[in-house]
């Protein structure tokens, strides 16, 4: 049985346009496919990944056009629904950015920051990205 890992993801929108995804969420999805057991907590600027309906236009340079620009909300939905990775979002970080609970994708769970230490205790590994 795999060790349970809690992944606190704080770095956000770092190279998502070039990679067409977030490299950490991608890594966790790939590891889950290899048998890992992950949970994700989005905090800091990364809470924005759970906002529904987001997306930037693909990059265009002359005749070169990006056709698969990232959709981070869809990637998080994929984590929750397809990969069965629980995704928590820190409530205070949402509030600090003026993001309402109704702005989030379905399936994202709210977590008060004071509850985070208690959640950590349930995991064998805690990784802060």
């Amino acid at each position, binding site marked *: 049985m795999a060790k349970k890992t809690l992944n606190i993801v704080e770095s956000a929108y*770092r190279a998502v346009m070039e990679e067409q995804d977030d490299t950490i969420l991608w890594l966790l999805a790939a590891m889950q496919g290899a048998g890992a057991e992950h949970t994700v907590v989005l905090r800091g600027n990364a809470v924005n990944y759970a906002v529904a309906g987001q997306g930037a236009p693909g990059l265009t340079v002359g005749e070169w056009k990006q*056709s698969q620009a990232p959709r981070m909300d869809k990637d998080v939905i994929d984590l929750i629904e397809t990969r069965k990775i629980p995704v928590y979002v820190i409530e205070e970080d949402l509030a600090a950015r003026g993001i309402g609970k109704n702005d989030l994708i379905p399936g994202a769970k709210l977590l008060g920051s004071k509850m985070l230490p208690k959640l950590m205790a349930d995991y064998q590994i805690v990784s802060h990205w």
Partner: protein
Amino acid sequence: MSKKTLTFALMDPPYESENLTTAFRILDAAARRGHTINVFAYEGASALAFTKQVPHANPVHGKNLAEENHPTTKDQVAALLVLAEKSGGKVDWVNCGMCVDERGVAEFIAGTRRGSPADLHTFSEASDNVLVIPTK
């Protein structure tokens, strides 16, 4: 609109930040207007035009090579050179020589060249404006 000479100093390596997407959006806009563009690709940015970059499929996305259409910065640099020429402008893209050597990325696409910090000095002296997009 008068044509300007613009110098850009880039520092971020490919696939590490959003800075390069911002840089390429600005470069595209400048090239479409036919401005003369100088680029000094410093530190990690010296790998932007590296010829051995290869796009990949993405099993996590469930997409094959064609469907993923993964970006490579060398293609973006090449497209910029073509665009500038079509628009009546030009791009002088300089890859910092010591930077490419220490990274093993000294093979860069045609139309870019090897250079040194002296090129950034020359560019700056001859430019209407200089924009540094530094790594953080």
